[in-house]
């Protein structure tokens, strides 16, 4: 239904009609396809920090047409704002106004990316003020974007250069079509670890990845995306979903493992399968999840306990097995949800489990880093799947149309792309974090 609407408001007569009625006109988002140009036009690099020259060189190496001045009338594919050396809120004016003047030239599907430093308790008050101010201003820019363009930020820990592998991987992701449904978000880079892929079209070449809950929905899209990016994929789902799971496995030339992730030996089973059949276990995506929505006043133990068991307890138990196995460089990405951040009516159980995921990755980061790996979460907003198809129509329409800056639900692919970034070796400097893929909305499942 969303697709129909998207098509209608973007073509011919119905486009004019929608425009004159003032109906929301969600844009068709610019999504990644292998070999596609990184941006739909030249890149404007604003800001005079010392990182500028090195960064410009890298961007040129990516084949971008990099401009250092806002002059001219031509279309722009993207704008990068280097705000990492600002020390006072007063200094924001110049780069922000320059960016504002260029925004009108931003092509549909264009990108704004700001690079900044985190605001810390130890900062001088003015420094912390400008840094925290950047957070607010980028989120506001996101709300003002048109035509499927987005604004996001990268927050570099003190001392980490803008050309650190994870900073570049995050930048590449945010500029590309892979970040289509990521808007108003920040990716924090905490270390200079990581290696950039030889080929940005196959960042997971040679990796063995396990995706749970992969029989359908977001999990199936993750399997497809990791396969496209070069990984050998093991897909896991409950035995009862085995036929759909087999279809996914055969589509991605992977192997199917019928397994309920709440089984006490699920972690061992996954390791055994991946290592004996594919020689390694490099990536695990904890995607299996369920909803059992009920207002808390009407909640029963079966609903509450099953959601906790599948969505968070199973992950905690599997992670213990993975850590015990000391798999070198193992990277984990777990599915949180915006419900676990902003809350959602009828989802006290689900939000507890998804908030739980966010806490779990933060508290597990050091342990996984000790083996040379890492753990992060992705929090999707409203994504069009069988899970959200269960939401009543009216709620669904509101969730999809009104709340997100991008005025539409996301696709499973959009979530999968973010997971692909965090699963890659280039993301080694990103750890314990949660990245939202929500079109800058707060509603989700």
């Amino acid at each position, binding site marked *: 239904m969303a697709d129909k609407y998207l098509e209608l408001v973007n073509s011919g007569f119905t486009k004019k009609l929608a425009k004159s009625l003032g109906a929301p006109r969600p844009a068709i988002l610019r999504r990644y396809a292998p070999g596609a140009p990184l941006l739909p036009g030249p890149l404007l690099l604003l800001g005079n920090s010392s990182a500028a020259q090195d960064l410009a060189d890298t961007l040129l190496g990516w084949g971008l047409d990099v401009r250092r001045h806002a002059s001219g009338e031509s279309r722009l594919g993207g704008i990068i704002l280097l705000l990492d050396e600002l020390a006072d809120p007063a200094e924001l004016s110049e780069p922000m106004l320059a960016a504002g003047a260029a925004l009108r030239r931003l092509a549909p599907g264009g990108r704004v990316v700001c690079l900044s430093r985190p605001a810390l308790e130890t900062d001088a008050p003015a420094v912390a003020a400008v840094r925290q101010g950047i957070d607010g201003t980028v989120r506001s820019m996101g709300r003002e974007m048109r035509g499927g363009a987005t604004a996001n930020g990268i927050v570099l820990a003190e001392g980490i250069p803008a050309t650190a592998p994870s900073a570049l991987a995050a930048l590449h992701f945010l500029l590309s079509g892979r970040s289509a449904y990521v808007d108003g978000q920040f990716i924090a880079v905490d270390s200079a670890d990581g290696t950039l892929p030889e080929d940005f079209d196959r960042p997971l070449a040679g990796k063995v990845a396990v995706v749970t809950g992969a029989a359908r929905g977001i999990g199936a899209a993750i399997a497809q995306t990791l396969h496209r990016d070069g990984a050998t994929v093991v897909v896991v789902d409950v*035995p009862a979903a*085995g036929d759909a799971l*087999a*279809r996914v496995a055969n589509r991605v*030339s992977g*192997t199917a493992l019928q397994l309920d992730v709440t089984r006490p030996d699920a972690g061992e089973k996954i390791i055994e399968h991946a290592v004996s059949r594919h020689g390694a276990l490099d990536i695990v995506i904890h995607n299996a999840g369920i909803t059992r929505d009920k207002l808390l006043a009407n909640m029963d133990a079966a609903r509450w306990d099953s959601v906790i068991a599948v969505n968070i307890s199973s992950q905690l138990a599997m992670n213990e097995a993975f850590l015990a196995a000391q798999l070198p460089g193992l990277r984990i990405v777990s599915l949180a949800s915006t419900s676990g951040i902003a809350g959602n009516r009828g989802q006290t159980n689900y939000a507890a489990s998804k908030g739980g995921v966010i806490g779990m990755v933060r508290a597990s980061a050091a342990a996984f880093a000790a083996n040379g790996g890492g753990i992060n979460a992705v929090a999707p907003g409203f994504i069009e799947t069988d899970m959200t198809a269960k939401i009543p129509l009216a709620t669904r329409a509101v969730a999809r149309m009104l709340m997100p800056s991008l005025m539409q639900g996301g696709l499973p692919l959009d979530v999968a792309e973010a997971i692909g970034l965090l699963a890659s070796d280039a993301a080694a400097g990103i750890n314990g974090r949660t990245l939202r893929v929500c079109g800058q909305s707060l509603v989700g499942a």
Partner: protein
Amino acid sequence: MSDQTQAIRPAVIIGGNRIPFARSNGAYSKASNQDMLTAALDGLIARFGLQGQRLGAVAAGAVLKHSKDFNLVRECVLGTSLSAQTPAYDVQMACATGMEAIGSLANKIKLGQIDSGIGGGVDTTSDAPIAVSEGLRAVLMDLSRARTTGAKLKAVSRFRPRDLAPNAPGTGEPRTGLSMGDHQAITTKAWNISRAAQDELALASHKNLAAAYERNFFDDLITPFAGVSKDTNMRADSTLEKLASLKPAFGKNLGAEATMTAGNSTPLTDGASAVLLGSEDYAREHDLPMLANFVDFEAAAVDFVHGAEGLLMAPTYAVARILERNNLSLQDFDFYEIHEAFAGTVLATLAAWEDAEFCKNKLGLQAPLGAIDRSRLNVNGSSLAAGHPFAATGGRIVASLAKMLHEKGSGRGLVSVCAAGGQGVVAILEAR
């Protein structure tokens, strides 16, 4: 082995897959043999990552087959993600189809002719081929040969309304006109198998199958199909009382002595199964597990037409021969998988092996083969509980037995499958 024979290498069972079996005219009533076998293959391919591979051969078959399905297995292969260069052929040996398909593939692997293969079978009695009557067929053939209007009219004029009654395939034996169940009823009576013993065997089958599901035994042996994830014939809550309350279904002419009911006989069932075999090198090169060796298999047939032997007793003969060839005794096995066409079949088979006279006169043995440890019989359930889609049963048994042996880590398993036409195929598997 004579000096001329080539050195043979082991044929290894790597794993299997089947769809849940469903009672006829139930969940799969709209599914064709091709749909079901393709699904079983798809699940196997997904489990072992065989996409794009050219296998040595895929051999399978169906007992009840539409004439349009003359190349059933090859058509199925073309519908999967296996390499289109994978040869495939249909096998047909009644209920022993699956065993024959798997056994002959194993032979080819042992001889080094192929390195890998899938053997299995499928059957549906819900989508069974219906043939036009012989009368109508004659009229239609004449009509197609007629050149003139007169000749055409003449051909049509021979049509009689009774010719419209279609011929559905039955499980009756063409030469005796008796159904398989009525044949077994004769054997059951001849061996004095009690109703209680048959009901107990049926109950054990259901309990064992349910327990196997309970311990997730089938998680890597079954892939759901058409919304079904467990065998629909299974009755985990069955009791001896319930089974005892059923009326006789076969051998009704025996009156009060009739013992065979719908509860201790297999129902008509739809389903499909597939087993992946390979050489050791193949398994190693592809990082695939080796569950068991397919050691040997043997077919036998008996003269049931003239009453010399019971219709389903051929496996007793085949077992005697395969044991001798392999220098084994009947007690040298850790698992016995005796296909439960009827509870009476299994019990008559066991009784015959214990019977000195039968073993001497019929099997030509000096001593009876003896009794088996019944706790090793059909330990994860068999056809009475799972159902029996004729050609698919062999694949079900071989895959499950191979996994059981691998879990145990040592020992041997004996498979025995009876078939229509007085035939049977037995096999020996060895753990790895």
